């Protein structure tokens, strides 16, 4: 212990500092995060970035090829679709749909799942049995099929898609927060709060929640990617966002009839989905390594 006096500059990094240090060296997190941030900026500033109105049809300018094709020009850098709408502008506005649904639905799912998971893990016993049972029921439902049926019933507004996806993707938050809460339940700071007479709600919010936030964020970052993929699939099948909304999945569906002659109409929105989802997954994996390294596979 006398060594400590001899090394006055010895600095024990706080968990937060360690996290920042891990984040700085994490290529996947930086690259993925940068792409996601870019997509968010594009979505937010869509009206300023899009060269054309994404809904504006001009039948005299149908199926213009992208700039790299023969006869393409920078006026319509990614070409136009079968209605003469500018593909780049639709792509830019489409980022809004994907991200809006992805983030909002993940928020609903995170609230719902964490509430159930923390309750089950904290109280144990009957409450936990009910939570486990609900998780099992949720897992048994075929997500795509239920989502398709519900959209066909509720209609394909962005709002109803957010609600439906939120209620279909809460299970992983519940599983993760439940197991973390079980470990926290017997820890000194929770017992101390109980001894001090804190209410269950206060303990859940002040003692448990701050300690599961990292895990919730990690799960959310990966679930957003799943939700974006499902939304795209639903819209592609014609049971998601309604035309003429520029959803990327819908753009693939609309380009499908031109697959043979104008494959770029299918390729471009598909690549956009792929890129965004890869970036979100990279950022999510990175967040896990940085924020909850014990949860690594």
């Amino acid at each position, binding site marked *: 212990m006398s060594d400590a006096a001899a090394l006055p500059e010895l600095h024990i990094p706080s968990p937060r500092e360690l996290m920042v240090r891990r984040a700085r060296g994490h290529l996947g997190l930086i690259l993925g995060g940068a792409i996601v941030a870019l997509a968010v900026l594009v979505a937010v500033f869509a009206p300023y970035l899009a060269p054309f109105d994404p809904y504006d049809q001009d039948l005299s300018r149908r199926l213009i090829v992208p700039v790299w094709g023969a006869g393409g020009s920078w006026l319509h850098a990614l070409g136009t679709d079968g209605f003469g709408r500018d593909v780049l502008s639709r792509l830019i506005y489409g980022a809004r749909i994907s991200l809006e649904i992805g983030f909002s639905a993940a928020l609903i799912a995170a609230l719902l799942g964490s509430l159930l998971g923390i309750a089950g893990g904290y109280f144990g016993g009957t409450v936990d049995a009910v939570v486990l*049972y609900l998780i*099992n*029921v949720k*897992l*048994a*439902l*075929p*997500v*795509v*099929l*239920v989502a*398709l*049926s*519900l959209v*066909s*019933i*509720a209609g394909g507004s962005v709002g109803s898609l957010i609600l439906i996806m939120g209620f279909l993707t809460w299970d992983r938050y519940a599983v993760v927060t439940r197991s973390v809460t079980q470990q926290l339940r017997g820890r000194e700071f929770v017992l101390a709060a109980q001894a001090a007479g804190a209410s269950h709600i206060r303990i859940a919010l002040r003692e448990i929640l701050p300690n599961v936030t990292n895990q919730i964020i990690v799960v959310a970052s990966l679930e957003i*990617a799943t939700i974006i*993929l499902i939304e*795209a*699939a639903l819209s*592609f*099948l*014609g*049971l998601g966002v309604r035309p003429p909304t520029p959803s990327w*999945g819908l753009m*693939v569906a609309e380009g*499908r009839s031109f*697959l*043979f002659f104008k*494959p770029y109409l*299918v*390729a471009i929105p*598909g690549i956009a*989905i*792929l890129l965004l*989802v*890869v970036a979100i*997954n*990279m950022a999510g994996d990175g967040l896990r390594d940085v924020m909850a390294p014990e949860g690594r*596979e």
Partner: protein
Amino acid sequence: MLRFFLRRAVIAVLVAITVSIIGFSLLRLSGDVAAVLAGESAKPEDIARIAQAYGLDRPLYVQYLDWAWHALRGDLGQSLFTHEPVAGLILDRIGVTAILAVSSLIFALLVAVPLGVLAALRANTWIDRTALTLAVFGQAVPMFWFALILIFVLGVMLRWLPISGSATPAHFVMPTITLGVATMPAFMRLTRTGMIEVMSSDYIRTAWAKGLRPASVVFKHALRNAILPVVSLSAVSLGFLLGGSVIVESIFAVNGIGLLAYNSITRVDFPVVQSILVFLSFCYIALTLVSDVINARLDPRIRL
């Protein structure tokens, strides 16, 4: 073992009952079935008469019990669209979907397990990184888009494969690849992590020390233990594949229950949709139960 099985079975039955209630009420509460049956130009009296004829004017729980009682005896009602018995519609198509699900699972395992083993043995080399990158893309590529790319390349440009239908084995190749690619990443990662863990364990060190051949150490001693979680994931994935076939079947016009479900949803054919929903859930529940039991047999620690 028996107690373990019984406990799991009771939970499975409870979950199954709940799912059937959800499936039933979801689609019943959603709209007026009698109005759909009566057609668009029907008068309120007609709708009321149809509701009475089909028993739709009874309380919902009576309707559920009635439906469940009939369902248990194999009578799932009639399609509102074709007026055929729903059970027959499903039975006619389940084979196609099952073949697709099983072939996708086999395809995924055949690629994922060797790749995962290789990645684990060469951890942190370019082989490992390539495998992980493939997994990242497999997880992120939209299934419906990948299917269209396959159609464009293999079907239209190269003309190797038929692009639509389910008449010959060749028709199943592209749907199998599409579904397989989507399931592969999880298997690959699981095999890789399992192998890395097992390869650093004491008994593998002993096996090396005994001077066993590398192939024997890797395949006979290590893989057998590392593969356990993959086996249980396989059962669960099969459930996912049965449900995930909605997208793939509708793109490739594979005449299975996925396509039937999709068509029935667009035709607002409630009896078919709810039966498929409940049927797929039951498959999933049964497969998870089987996977739990297999796991408990293979790994006695779980039974405790």
